[in-house]
C-alpha cells in the first residue's frame, strides 16, 4: 500500500536523495535538518552531519528541534567552538554539501535572507545571513531547498546575502561549486552548464511545466528532456513521519 504524500514531503524526500553515503553535510534548521536526517536513516547511513553550532558527526537519536539541540553535542564525535567550525571546517572547504534556504532567489541562484524592500527601511526584516554566505562560497556543492512562488523566485533579489553565480551568472569567485541544485515543491532546478541560469530539469509527479512557470518570477528555462522525480517510497515516507513525530530512531 502506498502512503499518501504532499508537495512538502516530496521536496524533503527529493533533497534527502541528493545526499550520498560518506558526504560531509552541513545542516541548517528547517527542511535541511529533516532532509539530512532522512538521508541518514535511509540510503546514506554513513553521511556525516555537521551543525554550525559546533557538532561534528552528530548522530541525533531524534530530529533535533534546533541546531542547538542538546542531542547534537551528546552524540557528536567532536564539538568545536563556532570560530573553529567556520574557520577550520566550513571556510577550509571540508564540507561536501551545504543546504541553504532562501526568502528570495534569482535566476542565477543568488540568495536573499536579509530584507524585503529597502535595506535601511525594509518592508520585512528577515533573519539575516547566519552561516549561509560562507556555506554558499565554500561548500563543495550547495543544495537550496525553497518553495517555488512568485514571492521567492524573483527577477532580482532585494539584497544579495549569499552569492550563487553573481548578477549575470558569470561573477562567482569562490572555492565551492555553488548551488548545483535548487529543490522546490515543484521540482528540481539546476544551473545551465554554459550560462549558470537555473533550469528546471525535473518535476515532481503531478506537477506541470505551466505550474512551475506560474510560480517563477522570471521567464523560466526548462530542460528539453525534463524528467519526473520518482514518487516517495513507503520507506521514505515512513521515516519522514517518524522524524517529524520526533520518535527516537
Amino acid at each position, binding site marked *: 500500500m502506498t502512503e499518501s504524500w504532499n508537495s512538502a514531503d516530496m521536496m524533503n524526500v527529493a533533497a534527502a536523495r541528493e545526499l550520498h553515503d560518506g558526504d560531509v553535510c552541513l545542516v541548517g*534548521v528547517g527542511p535541511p535538518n529533516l532532509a539530512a536526517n532522512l538521508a541518514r536513516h535511509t540510503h546514506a547511513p554513513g553521511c556525516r552531519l555537521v551543525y*554550525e*553550532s*559546533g*557538532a561534528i558527526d552528530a548522530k541525533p537519536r531524534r530530529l533535533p*528541534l*534546533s*541546531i*542547538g*539541540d*542538546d542531542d*547534537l*553535542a*551528546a552524540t557528536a564525535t*567532536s*564539538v*568545536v*567552538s*563556532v*570560530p573553529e567550525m*567556520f*574557520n577550520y571546517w*566550513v*571556510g577550509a572547504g571540508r564540507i561536501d554539501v551545504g543546504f541553504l534556504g532562501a526568502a528570495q532567489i534569482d535566476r542565477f541562484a543568488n540568495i536573499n535572507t*536579509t530584507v524585503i524592500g529597502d*535595506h535601511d527601511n*525594509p*518592508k*520585512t*526584516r528577515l*533573519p*539575516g*545571513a*547566519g*552561516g*549561509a*554566505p*560562507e556555506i554558499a*562560497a*565554500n561548500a563543495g556543492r550547495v543544495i537550496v531547498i525553497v518553495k517555488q512562488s512568485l514571492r521567492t523566485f524573483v527577477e532580482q533579489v532585494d*539584497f*544579495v*546575502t*549569499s*552569492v550563487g553565480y*553573481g548578477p549575470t551568472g558569470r*561573477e*562567482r*569567485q*569562490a*572555492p565551492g561549486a555553488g548551488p548545483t541544485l535548487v529543490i522546490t515543491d515543484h521540482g528540481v532546478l539546476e544551473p545551465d552548464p554554459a550560462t549558470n541560469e537555473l533550469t528546471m530539469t525535473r518535476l515532481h509527479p503531478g506537477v506541470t511545466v505551466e505550474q512551475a512557470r506560474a510560480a517563477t518570477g522570471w521567464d523560466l528555462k526548462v530542460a528539453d528532456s525534463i524528467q519526473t522525480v520518482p514518487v516517495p517510497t513507503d520507506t521514505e515516507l515512513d521515516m519522514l513521519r517518524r522524524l517529524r513525530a520526533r520518535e527516537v530512531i
Partner: protein
Amino acid sequence: MPRPVHLDEAIATHVHDGDTVALEGFTHLIPFAAAHEIARQGRRHLKLVRMTPDVVYDQLIGLGVADELVFSYGGNPGVGSLHRLRDAVEKHWPHKLVVHEHSHAGLANAYVAGAGRLPFAVLRGYRGTDLEQQSDIISRVTCPFTGEELAAVKAVNPDVTVIHAQLADPEGNVMLWGLTGVQREAVLAADRAIVTVEEIVDEFPERTGAVILPEWALKAVSVVPGGAWPSYALGYSTRDNDFYQQWDVVSRDRGAFLAWAKENGLEAAADD
C-alpha cells in the same frame, strides 16, 4: 578577584548606559537571567552584540534597552521571526534600531580578532554579497604573499560580555561545556566579563570539550541556577521549547508583550 557577587550588583557595577554589550551563548547557555537584570535596572542606549539575537534580545529590544544591534542571524530558532526585533527595525517601536549584519563566520572572527586585541580578522567570505556595503565593519585585504583578495572584518571589543556557564570553583574560575559557541572569544574580547553559573563546586569534573576561563580574566561571577532558562545548560536543564513557541504569540503583539513584561517585573521603558 571575582568572588561570587549577587547578579544585581554585578550588572550595576559593570553595565552602563551606552555600553557595547555582548550576551553570548550559541543556542545553549544563553544568559537570560542577566539580560532580565539589565532590563530591570533600566539600562538604555546599549549597542547589543550577539551572533544569534534569539528570544533574549527580542525581549531586550522590545523593552527599549538597545539603540543598535550587531548580529548574524536574527530568528526564533525552530519557530520563526523575532517580532520585537522586526517591529523595531520596520516600525521603530519602541524606537529605531540600527542593525549591523554579519555572517556567522564574520562575527565569529570579529570576536576572534577582539580576543587577540587585533584590529581586524581575515576570512574567506562575503565576496560579492551586499553585506560588503557595510564598509565600516566589512572590508577587504590583499594577501602580501599571493595577491589574493580576502574579506576583513573589524574587531568587536564589547565593553561588557555576559555569559552563563555550568560551574565556578571557589577561586572563581569558570567552566562550561557542551556547545560552547563563541563564548571564549566574547569573554576575552571584552573589557569586562560577567559570568552567571549554575553552581560552585570544589573541583571541576573532567569534561571533553570544556572551556575553562581563569578568574583573573573575569570581573564578576554570580550564582544563578537556571540562569539560562528558557534556553538550557547541558547537564542541568533542557530547552523549554514551549516557551520559544509561546514567545511567537506573545511577541507578535505590542500589548501582549507589554503585559508579559509587566507580569515579569520587566517594565518596558517609556521611550526617550
